[in-house]
């Protein structure tokens, strides 16, 4: 607080309001210092670091495979992507091939995870606006996904499933049918969800034309994923810098089009997430149909010792580009691991995008960016 007070000259008619770090609408421990003229904000300055756990430093003391469980905690709502990005960076560093079956399994679990993450994302956004029921709908569906993934790898949240060189377990018997059964029930549920919240007049009124981020600003602030696509920038790592088995599948990249208001408003970002869930269903069906037989782990030496070099592995996570910049010095431990996460950029844009908004709309802005604290702070 002291810093914020010192930094700006406070005139008599402005008020300073603190929001967070413990606040139900900030999605984790993020703090905003709002300078407002009554209800209208001049700016909301994000203060982060309340969940800075020093993961990047911990990586420097661990052998390459042992760091995978820590990556789970980088993004606990969608930990598969965090595993995947790291595994990919190390595989690029080693120059090894991953078996086809493992790549397909990676795609299936990633897309299941994307659905689970977006369910919380859109549900929490509705909750922040004031509708509690959609959040419970999301949680209910997420439980089913958790059950599926638990059957596969034994964990509900922190999977440690995608390892360097492959994945840890093959599909147990009957899981294929369970995933299909889930998808069959999920599609009608999406329609119900749409009726409940997506075209709900209150949600549309709260979100449309609020917190507009135009394409240039989004690019400049390095927004990624649904936030970038919500502003109309046609960029998806799955299609544009293809990795894993994604070139084998057909899917659309959902873009914001100004559905109920201006291009790049909070409602566009919301809709992009809802549509992406449907695209994920498509991808999972294709992957299940074409799942090849074979190994699930590549041939790896007992001790991973990549030669000197640098690699950057980025995946399209539920929150956009999640990249790992791994620098090797030729030993069995990484010399430096830099994690580049989508929420970091999404939070940095809040100061710019909150100018002139109402205080109540700040919550909409944060929720529509779908930020998650450990990705910001790492």
């Amino acid at each position, binding site marked *: 607080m002291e810093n914020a007070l010192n930094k700006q000259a406070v005139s008599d008619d402005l008020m300073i309001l603190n929001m967070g770090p413990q606040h139900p609408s900030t999605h984790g421990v993020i703090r905003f210092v709002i300078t407002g003229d009554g209800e209208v904000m001049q700016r909301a300055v994000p203060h982060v670091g*309340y969940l800075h756990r020093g993961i990047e430093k911990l990586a420097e*003391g661990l052998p390459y495979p042992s760091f995978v469980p*820590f990556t*789970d*905690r980088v993004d*606990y709502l969608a930990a598969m992507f965090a595993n995947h990005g790291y595994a990919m960076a190390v595989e690029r560093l080693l120059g090894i091939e991953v078996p086809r079956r493992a790549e397909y399994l990676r795609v299936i679990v990633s897309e299941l995870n994307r659905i689970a993450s977006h369910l919380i994302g859109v549900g929490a956004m509705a909750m922040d606006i004031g509708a509690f029921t959609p959040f419970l709908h999301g*949680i209910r569906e997420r439980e089913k996904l958790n059950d599926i993934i638990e059957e596969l790898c034994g964990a509900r*949240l*922190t999977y440690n499933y995608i390892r360097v060189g492959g994945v840890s377990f093959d599909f147990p018997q009957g899981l294929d049918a369970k995933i299909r059964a889930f998808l069959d029930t999920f599609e009608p549920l999406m329609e119900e969800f749409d009726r409940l919240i997506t075209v709900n007049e209150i949600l549309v009124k709260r979100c449309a034309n609020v917190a507009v981020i135009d394409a240039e600003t989004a690019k400049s602030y390095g927004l990624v994923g649904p936030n970038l696509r919500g502003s109309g920038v046609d960029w998806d790592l799955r299609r544009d810098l293809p990795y894993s088995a994604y070139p084998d599948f057909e899917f659309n990249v959902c873009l914001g089009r100004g559905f109920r208001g201006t291009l790049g408003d909070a409602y566009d970002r919301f809709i992009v997430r809802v549509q992406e869930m449907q695209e994920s269903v498509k991808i999972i069906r294709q992957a299940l149909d074409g799942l090849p037989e074979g190994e699930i782990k590549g041939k790896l030496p007992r001790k991973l010792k990549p030669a000197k070099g640098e690699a950057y592995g980025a995946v399209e996570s539920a929150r956009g580009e999640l990249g790992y910049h791994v620098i090797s010095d030729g030993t069995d431990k990484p010399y430096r691991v830099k994690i580049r996460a989508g929420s970091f950029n999404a939070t940095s844009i809040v100061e710019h995008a909150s100018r002139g908004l109402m205080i109540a709309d700040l919550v909409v802005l944060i929720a529509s960016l779908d930020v998650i604290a450990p990705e910001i702070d790492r």
Partner: protein
Amino acid sequence: MVEEMNSPRVIEAGLEGGPGQGAVLWGKASYLLNLSRKHSLWYLLFATACCGIEMMQTGGPRTDLDRFGMVFRASPRQSDLMLVAGTITYKMADRVKLLYDQMAEPKYVIAMGSCASCGGLFQKSYSVLKGVDLIVPVDLYLPGCPPRPEALNDAMMKMQDIILSEDWRRKMTEKTEPRPQMGRGGILKRA
């Protein structure tokens, strides 16, 4: 409630009279008050990290916490129980202490997950507090990374047992032992 009173553990309370006769509930005041206290534990929604998601799932439809009379509150002033769900960093530590101090007595703390209990996976990290019991008194430690909703449910029931077994008057009047003041620009000293 009646079954609870008829359980062999409890001899200080009972229910007399049947339906339509005007039943009488008798027992030690301490027991009856504890009974009502334990069935209205309101917890502070204090999710810092991964455990927070499991806490929300526990409050969600499947393992419904509402059936214990537990609802989440966003404000520490309305809550009896602080669930420290997740990693606490040094930057956050001042705030945790502040939140704890804002809660009204009697108050309880559950350290959920290994991070809150001892630093867990991150105990080698330079910025993570090695256990929330270094700053606030903890009543219950819940292991797991993160603990499953069933585990949290169990912890809540153990918490209820603790409440039922204690002397409410002492709990109401006793002062929690003073903790070291946080200096050097910490919030508490400035205020």
